[in-house]
């Protein structure tokens, strides 16, 4: 176990703050150059506006970047997640092969099974490893998430403060999951980046969760996730976010899956005030397979926007996508999904589906599926449903002794069960089930 304590200052997201942040870091030159380039992009790019399709249903009113800053090291105060009241839902019943705990984007605790380390597995603080395993990181960092795609991506690429690397060498199978818990205190900022590289024939399970110190906490999360699954490798990746209801969350998640490789990607989004997440899977080698499972459960005035892409770049690939959202109160979700099939991607089998359960008259779910097919021998299907809880179903359950609230909770849990049935990690199924049950409120 290593614990790093550095004198901490907060750098603003402006030119001098950025300089200070870069100067204070002891990073390889290539990385500093990389950051500076992204910073220039940030400075020369406008904030996204609603004329852009992906942002047309987003609402950035109230977002003020200058409310937040970057810590250069671990802040004083609580130095563990439990001291900071940060829950760890996914840790229950799991014996991880390695873990990283971060607080406000800084690593507070990390560990990796020594046997795996001796097999060449790299796992831990991305910033530390940028020096120790420079080659691996230089080869892959921001190779698939492009810093210049918008201003948030550029800012995150320039200022990521910590994060995690998982590198699994050729043919190594990691049986137990690798686990990351990210905590955010009130009004703090996390710009952490995740980089996962599975070499040929490797296997691993990666669990990530982000939580705030309280349900009402404010804050900013700028996230980047890059996943590279090389030929014949298999990855299960779980991302649970339960940020406080005052957190702004902007994230770019992207994976490439190569020949005969597979990725099972499970997303659970419960928290944040506003989220804008781009999630893309590119199937780049013949016979690649991806399965994306999404659970969204919102309340209050939460507003979550997901733009997803299943990009078939090679023939004989299969992509399977299911997002389910349940909405309470005045919350809103937007899902815009695309299956893109390149001309050479013949024999593509693509599927996408989005189901929404409206638990209040004032909730709103926008569901916009899309297909863009440039090959002529493919099978692509998509669909979406949105509906309210059936009152007859509530009555049926009540006639069996369920209270109205218990009935709604059961119906919501049942609604998500189809996704749970697809998740092959039992502890994750249980944690998600509990997270959902905790948040169901009176339905009327």
């Amino acid at each position, binding site marked *: 176990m290593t614990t790093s304590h550095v004198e901490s200052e907060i750098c603003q997201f402006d030119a001098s703050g950025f300089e200070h942040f870069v100067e204070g870091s002891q990073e390889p030159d290539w990385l500093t150059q990389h950051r500076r380039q992204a910073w220039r992009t940030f400075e020369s790019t406008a904030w996204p506006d609603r004329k852009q399709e992906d942002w047309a249903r987003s609402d950035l009113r109230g977002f003020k970047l200058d409310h937040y800053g970057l810590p250069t090291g671990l802040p004083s105060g609580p130095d563990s997640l439990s001291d900071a009241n940060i829950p760890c839902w996914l840790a229950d019943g799991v014996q991880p092969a390695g873990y990283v705990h971060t607080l406000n984007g800084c690593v507070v605790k990390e560990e990796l099974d020594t046997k795996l380390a001796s097999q060449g597995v790299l796992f831990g603080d991305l910033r530390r490893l940028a020096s120790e395993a420079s080659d691996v990181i230089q080869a892959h960092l921001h190779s698939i998430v492009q810093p210049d795609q918008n201003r948030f991506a550029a800012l995150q690429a320039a200022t990521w403060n910590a994060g995690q690397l998982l590198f699994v060498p050729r043919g190594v199978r990691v049986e137990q999951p690798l686990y990351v818990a990210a905590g955010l205190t009130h009004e703090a900022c996390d710009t952490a980046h995740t980089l996962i590289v599975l070499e040929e024939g490797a296997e691993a399970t990666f669990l990530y969760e982000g939580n705030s110190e309280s349900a009402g906490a404010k804050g900013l999360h700028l996230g980047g996730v890059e996943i590279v699954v090389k030929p014949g490798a298999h990855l299960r990746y779980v991302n649970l976010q339960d940020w406080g209801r005052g957190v702004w969350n902007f994230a770019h998640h992207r994976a490439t899956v190569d020949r005969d490789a597979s990725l099972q990607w499970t997303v659970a989004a419960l928290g944040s005030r506003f989220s804008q997440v781009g999630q893309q899977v590119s199937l780049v080698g013949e016979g690649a397979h991806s399965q994306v499972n999404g659970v969204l459960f919102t309340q209050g005035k939460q507003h979550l926007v997901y733009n997803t892409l299943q990009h078939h770049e090679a023939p004989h690939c299969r992509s399977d996508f299911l997002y389910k959202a349940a909405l309470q109160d005045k919350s809103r979700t937007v899902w815009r999904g695309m299956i893109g099939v390149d001309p050479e991607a013949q024999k593509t089998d693509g599927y996408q589906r989005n189901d929404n359960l409206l638990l209040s008259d004032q909730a709103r779910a926008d569901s916009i599926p899309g297909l863009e097919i440039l090959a002529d021998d493919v099978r692509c299907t998509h669909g979406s449903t949105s509906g309210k809880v059936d009152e007859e*179903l509530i009555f049926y359950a009540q006639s069996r002794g*369920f209270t109205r609230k*218990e009935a709604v909770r059961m119906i919501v849990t*049942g609604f998500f*069960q189809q996704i749970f049935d697809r998740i092959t990690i039992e502890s994750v199924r249980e944690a998600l089930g509990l997270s959902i049950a905790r948040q169901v409120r009176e339905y009327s």
Partner: protein
Amino acid sequence: MTHVLKIENLHVSVNGKSILRGVNLTMNHGETHALMGPNGSGKSTLGLVIAGHPGYEVTEGSITLDDQDILDLEADGRARAGIFMAFQRPISVPGVKMADFLRHATTNVRRPDRKEGEELIAMREFRKELKQKMEQLRMDPEFARRYVNDGFSGGEMKRAEILQLAMLQPKFAILDETDSGLDADAVRLASSSIAEIGREKMGLLIITHHDKLLEHNPPEFTHVMLGGRIVETGGVDLAQELHSQGYDRIRQAHPDAERANQEMTSDDQAELAVG
């Protein structure tokens, strides 16, 4: 102590339209009552009103269970007080396994004071009982792992309702057309299953068009409903008469109720045509 379910002068409307027009019915624990009558006479409505369906408005009269007024209770309160209804068309609950659904239901009904979030009855004990009840009803154990009524055949749905009845052990049960949509063998199986559960351990109100379900469950009382009222009450012979000869005699003997019945059913037709 014997339990009594008493319905007095019950008037019920839905969307301002009168459906029940003064129903009187008293059932004692251990008795089997058949409720018969032509389509649209109000039989299912009576069942749903007893069970506590929120879509019906009781404009007059009372329903008491052991002298406790149950009209103020929501459906779950009535279930906990000992009322059960087997639905004519049970609703599917996607994603919820029969065993989980029943464990929760059984806990709430057996521990009427249980608060939300308190523990359910022990898994082991529950499973044992469920397994035994399913064997008794000759049901495949796989049934418990399926989602409630999801993709069930007509016969499976009705048997699932009977299984719930067996587990919840109510004081009074209403079986709404538990025989409809079933073939002769399935009706016989349902009928004998109800008898096996022990109809003497509850009060049974069997709503039916046919007498098949009554074969193993001969009613002590047969009530005939027409135009939202019970117009005649007799013994098992009345059920047999209605089954073999239909409702012509009843319709002629109660012209006012017959007129009301025609009004109610013609409104139904009009609604169907519009809707």
